[in-house]
């Protein structure tokens, strides 16, 4: 059973456009949702994260929109740049006591100049 789902599997946008990456989850007890990005031949690194007390989190060109009722979230990347081309992982974390980060399968984003 896949607890964190991501779509699309891959996405291509033109430079300057807004890329939208989707994520949904099964377990309503998840209470922390980080997004990690991974560039080719590098390891994952934290990009931005949100807790369900908020429905929006912004960091520069990156914004997470969160819908707790529907158990969905999305990552919006405005003014996409070729340097944003990477694999983006949505992850979910349960309440404290069980330290296991569950990752989705990732969305491969390509930003064409």
């Amino acid at each position, binding site marked *: 059973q896949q607890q964190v789902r991501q779509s699309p599997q891959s996405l291509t946008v033109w430079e300057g456009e807004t890329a939208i990456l989707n994520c949904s989850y099964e377990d309503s007890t998840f*209470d*922390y949702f*980080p997004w990690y990005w*991974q560039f080719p031949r*590098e*390891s*994952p*690194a*934290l990009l931005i*994260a949100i*807790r369900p007390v908020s429905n929006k989190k912004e960091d520069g060109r990156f914004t997470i929109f969160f819908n707790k009722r529907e158990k969905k979230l999305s990552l919006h990347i405005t003014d996409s740049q070729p340097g944003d081309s990477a*694999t983006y*992982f949505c992850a979910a*974390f349960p309440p*404290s*006591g*069980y*330290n*296991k*980060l*569950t*990752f989705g*399968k*990732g969305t*491969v984003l390509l930003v064409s100049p």
Partner: protein
Amino acid sequence: ETAVFQTPNYHVTQVGNEVSFNCKQTLGHDTMYWYKQDSKKLLKIMFSYNNKQLIVNETVPRRFSPQSSDKAHLNLRIKSVEPEDSAVYLCASSLYWGGAYEQYFGPGTRLTVL
């Protein structure tokens, strides 16, 4: 330099051999992890250690055995490797256990089993 370090970067071996990977973090974190990332980039947790104690042991084959001498070091031994063990093994650390702390990943060890 404070980071997560892994050795070796690459390892090529044959089916049935034993391999060992090393991880060291100089971030002063309490918690360390081993992840497996397959050819499709799927990331799966294998083990979690808190202050050198095994906390989480996901369903992995028994030929995998982690070991931690102190909270800064975490090793992984694979006895009798199988072709499906070919993957990138990522070590990570976080400040503490039991909370949503950022995980810092090492560069990974790419294992190829022939």
